[in-house]
């Protein structure tokens, strides 16, 4: 009986120990998502925030690709191999960095 009690206590402790950070992480993300959703809602001129808004913002924080606009953050693009004509995973060729000289006269 005592053994079973100790075992249960250990299991509960383990679950709690593991769950804590995850809950915290999720809590942080959700809070941030909610704030961002409010902000996004603010842009819409007071429109009600729905679940899609939160999902969209969460996707942004999870580095998922999203539609255009200023919130194209976190997309999983492998950096091109240096400069000078490398290819990024998105298929775009990075341009060579040629020196720019700003001349004073026409």
């Amino acid at each position, binding site marked *: 009986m005592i053994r079973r009690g100790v075992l249960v206590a250990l299991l509960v402790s383990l679950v709690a120990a593991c769950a804590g950070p995850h809950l915290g992480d999720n809590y942080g993300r959700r809070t941030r998502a909610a704030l961002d959703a409010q902000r996004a809602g*603010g842009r819409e001129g007071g429109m009600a925030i729905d679940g899609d808004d939160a999902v969209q913002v969460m996707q942004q924080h999870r*580095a998922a690709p999203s539609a255009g606009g200023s919130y*194209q953050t976190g997309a999983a693009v492998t*950096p091109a191999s240096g400069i000078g004509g490398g290819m990024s995973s998105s298929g775009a060729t990075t341009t060579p960095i040629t020196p720019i*000289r700003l001349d*004073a*006269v026409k």
Partner: protein
Amino acid sequence: MRRRDREHGGVLPLLLGMLLILAVAFFGATTIGRFVVARQEAQRAADATCLAYGTIIRTEGMQVLSEQQRRAEVVGRANTTLTVLFDWSVPPLETATAVELTCRAIARVPAPSFIWAAGTIDAIGEAKGRAAQETITDAEKKYPQLTLVLDYSGSMAAGMGGVRPPSVDQDSFHVLRNAAMTLLNKDYELRYGLVIFATGIRYTTDNVRLGNDEIMKEKVMADWKCPYRDDGGGCMTASAAALQQAQNLLDDPALPSTEKKYVIFVSDGLPTVPRNNPQGRARQMAGALWDMGVTIYTLHVINSASVTPLRNFMISVSGPPDHRGVETVTNPDGTTARYYFNVNDEASMNEFFDEIGGALACSIGPLDPGPAAGQVDRMRVFTKAQGGRETQIMNARLAAPPANEIGDLWDDDLTFRNSDFFLYDAEDKMLYVTPRVCDRVQQQHEPVVIRFASTQIVL
């Protein structure tokens, strides 16, 4: 008979007298003839010497005059069969518009000493040569006018290349700020302006002027809420408003109209503000910039998977006024000038800003009347020190390899900058010179003397 005796022998003195007169007349006529010929020879020698002296001064400037005169004398002597001497007692008379040369050649003609006690007559030929020149005492420095337009929108919080940044200090926003500081810390002498934007203009300098880089260093690193906090509009991307503000700054009538104007537009996202046709509005503003002669460089910060739409947009607002909406332009000399750039990591971002160079210019002129088309290559330019000694400024167009653009004279990577060179712009009749020459004119007040016309004999 008596009368006859008296008359006997009376003819002899008369005859002797007549012989004497005839002898004097003969020697006199001969000497005068030789003198006339010698006078012509001396004049020819003087003319040739003056022309040669004028050419030497035009090509070398006024150096050690006695040495230059000796060389001119060689030319003079080659133009006569007589032995001539030269008299340089009248020094060159210089004004702002000409150098007047007085050249005197002397041919000594032997003469009967019973007539000319010295035994010689000096046949003097004198010539006056006029070498036209222009003298300019002022030089004006010209500076590139550059407005940096930096995107601080929310998406700049993403990592470069679209990967999650190891820390917030390595996201696109921080990488951009640090790279921009690299440029500003170079302390280039540029007329700087700055526009920081997100949903709207977060910061702008009051104007575009020299010395703005100090305040810009502070403002680039300041907290403008975006990209991490809300600026009241969600840290969107108001590219059109930013380009319009750049146009306002560069359209300042106080700015010299002859200087080149540039915008470096940095963004990581398609325009989202205003709601109605944001890309079209931004392109419209780019068109307004081109209309006022602004060259637009764009830097596309790749930090998302969606690259092509932004690339297309950025290229559409890139280019010089005469090649609008282009990624690159092939120059007449075969080189390629790039106007659209993209970067996807910190190293390439730093390299972009590090590779920006400023090429000032120092103008002298305009020349009035300036050389004709055929005289440009024979034009010689000098600075004149206080003692009158002239230092020649070389024509960079005739150097090997030659300079092709005025900016080449101040380019750190080329050989002209640390020497005395000039370039002549025939269109506006302006001379452009390297920094050393500019400093001599501006700080040591040495006038610039320009010579291109041939010497003319005026007497």
